[in-house]
């Protein structure tokens, strides 16, 4: 570990993201200080994602698997890392410059905090710009606990447990579990993640998965509330 890197690992699950993954990995590896370990779990891509990964920076490790879904890929990534602090990113989103340093400072200053969130800013991917005309994309920075905004201690991730492999959209459920686990979360008042809007993530099938994911997360949130009360 050089002086310009920190004991942070980032897990990226990817599937067929040849268009955007390169930019995603650059945004992570370009952080100052940089994470010492970036694990990309390629969940059975059959496009040019492997070519993109071959050209990735040295700190990027690639694990390939047959397609098993986002939860299985994220869990495999978590199992493969040993850093004290963990970050995440969807394979089409971007970490903003300076984000890691800011969130890390909070974790260092206050040992009682188990994770740090931040703001997310959505943007219409330039290569599909005409979608912005037909969709209501809110591009103002907003607080929203998309997984890619969170920087958590390893101990937090372990306490929350694995991503649920029975869910198509396990990230929402994991975030809900993290926030209802009793772990203290803080947040930085700046954009930490730029969330790319493009045609691949706004399909009807994804909408149905989203719907199921949100209902499952709500159900679990309530179950946990009832256990606590």
């Amino acid at each position, binding site marked *: 570990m050089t002086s310009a890197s920190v004991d942070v690992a980032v897990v990226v699950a990817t599937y067929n993201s040849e268009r955007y993954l390169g930019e995603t990995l650059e945004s992570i590896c370009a952080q100052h200080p940089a994470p010492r370990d970036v694990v990309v779990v390629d969940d059975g891509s059959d496009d040019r994602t492997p070519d993109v990964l071959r050209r990735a920076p040295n700190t990027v490790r690639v694990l390939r698997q047959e397609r098993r879904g986002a939860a299985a890929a994220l869990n495999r990534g978590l199992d493969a890392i040993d850093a004290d602090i963990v970050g995440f990113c969807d394979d089409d989103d971007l970490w903003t410059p300076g984000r890691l340093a800011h969130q890390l400072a909070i974790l260092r200053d206050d040992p009682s905090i188990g994770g740090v969130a931040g703001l997310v800013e959505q943007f219409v991917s330039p290569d*599909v710009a005409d979608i912005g005309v*037909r969709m*209501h994309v809110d591009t103002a920075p907003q607080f929203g606990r998309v997984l890619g905004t969170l920087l958590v201690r390893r101990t937090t991730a372990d306490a929350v447990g694995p991503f649920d492999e029975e869910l198509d959209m396990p990230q*929402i459920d994991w975030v809900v579990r993290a926030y209802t686990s009793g772990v203290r979360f803080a947040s930085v008042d700046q954009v930490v993640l730029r969330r790319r809007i493009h*045609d691949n993530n706004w399909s*009807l099938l994804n909408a149905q998965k989203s719907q199921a994911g*949100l209902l499952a997360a709500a159900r679990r949130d309530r179950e946990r509330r009832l256990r606590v009360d």
Partner: protein
Amino acid sequence: MRDAAFVVRTPAVIHERLDDEVIAIDLERGIYYAMVGSAADIWTSFTTPATADAVADALAPRYRLDAGAIRDEVHKFVARLQDERLLVAVEVDGAGEVGATIDGTPGGRWATPELEAYDDIADLVLLDPIHQVDEAGWPHVPNPSP
């Protein structure tokens, strides 16, 4: 005066029932709601257009009660659901009764229907892709350039 008919305000409201419990989410506000028992049964009755009176009539035997015994509470709960914009008024053709969509299994003991509301996951709901679609439907992929 004819009792007004209502129905769940889809697609802005999504919902799911598992056994005795309904979870509903208002995608516009990010609030999620939970309803159990009698509340869940009332909700399910409004997944197709229904009047409060018809729902009371349909549910009462399920709880081994007279419709009169539960009518007020059903009306009150319907008003609550309307206040939260979970139900929307609809026109119903004809003067026929609107049916309630509850199966015949026994309903257990009637308790005053309650609506639980939580905003814990509002930011997650509001950022979810399901929001960002125009009235025309889903965006189609632009024709790939040759």
